[in-house]
């Protein structure tokens, strides 16, 4: 039951490493279709990859871009820290307490499915208009998948490991450190993969609505001023960042699974 809940939020199973040539082909293909689309739709509607890169460089060198980026980074990493620490802690508790887990699981799934942005006004009313509202918004987007995955990970720890702990007469701390945590980590990392993306999404959405600073705000300004090159440049930057992290987490995940 719980494994299913987790899988609903999860990506595809770990399907092994792609050969470099495939990745190159993919990137090439994507660039080519982007270029084509931009030619067909018109460069003022969809800027070409080159134009986007130029714009990205331009954005990077504009004087207060650094401040916006710093603001978003601060909000995002705080949110990520809270979502990860809080999510794992909550997941551990719900995983260890079977009844609590069974009670809360559908509630968590229901919360996950709410269009959270429509509740943003409440967040603003509670947290005010500063960075804390963005952080809170990032957290509520990212924490639920992390909770669910961690809970599942703990529940799926094979009972035989518990018996091993006793056979080797480990103290509870030794047991947790040497057996329980390593056993649960791969699942938790899978949760982090989606938790990461959604936390970033939440933070940016928070900035798009009612904020004066940050990448989300720049995006909203670009939308308001109908500025596709900036939109594409910032979107590309976010996508590259998220993909890089996603690949890194995927590698970590594979390492943890030891070629499983």
């Amino acid at each position, binding site marked *: 039951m719980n494994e299913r809940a987790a899988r609903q939020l999860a990506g*595809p199973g770990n399907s092994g490493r792609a050969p470099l040539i495939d990745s190159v082909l993919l990137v090439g293909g994507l660039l080519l279709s982007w270029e084509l689309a931009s030619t067909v739709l018109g460069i003022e509607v969809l800027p070409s990859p080159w134009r986007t890169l130029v714009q990205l460089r331009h954005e990077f060198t504009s004087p207060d871009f650094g401040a916006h980026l710093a603001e978003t980074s601060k909000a995002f990493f705080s949110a990520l820290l809270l979502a990860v620490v809080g999510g794992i802690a909550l997941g551990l508790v719900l995983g260890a307490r079977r009844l609590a887990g069974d009670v809360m699981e559908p509630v968590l799934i229901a919360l996950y499915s709410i269009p959270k942005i429509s509740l943003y006004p409440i967040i603003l009313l509670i947290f005010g208009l500063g960075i804390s509202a963005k952080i809170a918004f990032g957290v509520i987007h990212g924490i639920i998948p992390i909770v669910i995955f961690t809970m599942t990970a703990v529940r799926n720890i094979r009972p035989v490991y518990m018996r091993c702990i006793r056979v080797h007469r480990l103290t509870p701390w030794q047991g947790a450190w040497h057996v329980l945590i390593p056993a649960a980590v791969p699942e938790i990392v899978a949760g982090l993969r989606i938790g990461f993306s959604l936390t970033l999404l939440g933070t940016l959405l928070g900035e798009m609505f009612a904020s004066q600073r940050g990448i989300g705000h720049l995006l909203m300004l670009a939308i308001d001023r109908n500025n596709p090159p900036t939109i594409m440049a910032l979107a590309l930057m976010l996508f590259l960042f998220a993909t890089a992290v996603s690949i890194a987490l995927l590698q970590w995940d594979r390492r943890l699974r030891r070629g499983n």
Partner: protein
Amino acid sequence: MSFRYRVVLLRSLVIVFSIVLLEVASRLGWIDPVSFIPPSEMALSAWRLLRDGTYQSDMLLTLSSAAVSIMLATSVGFLFGLVLFKLPRLRRVLDPLLMSYYAVPIFVFYPMLIVLFGLNRWPLIVLGFLFAIVAMAVNTLNGLQRVPQVLMRTARMLHMGRTQEVLLITLPASLPFVFTGIKLAIVYSFIAIIGGEFLLSGAGFGYQIAFAYNNFDNQTMYGLMFLLLTFIGVINLVLHAVEQRLYQRRVLKELA
């Protein structure tokens, strides 16, 4: 069995308790009454909005857009999942992208979608579609990967044709997972469409919430939120029930 009832009972208690707590907290003024109104008043306001039918057209607009985008996302997403299943090489390279996909707020492409589709509901529908399709594809893929090879061999033993095989074996065998995809597609479509209305559009459920917020109209804002939450809650309940039925036959042993 009694365990399951206890769980359901406890869950209801948790939910009721949270609502009562909110009610008491706002009635006693623990939470700022200008920003937050008691749940009972939200319900009352929701009821009034429904009765007066002020927002009927907005709700219908949101619903119809979501319906279109869900249909598109489930059908195209299924095909996409099928393609990924048939092409493991493609699947391997796309793997990291399928996750990072959700990190970019797709709403930012709204202006371009307007140019592409014109100033109507289509840009929003496409937003819903784009947000939902990957979830659908991933779960379809997941389901197809889980169809045991032996069932396919059984089909050949029984001299079944291609169509029969898909209809009578592949589909029922992967249905619980494909259904999970449909469920997520529904949820994600709503998230994107309501989010898009909230941030960008001039009509619909999400827009009206943002508008009420902007106009300090807390009664309307919370009334609309209440309606939205109730609506999403009901959808969730229905989907959960359907899913339980689908899974039930397969997991009876675990539950017994």
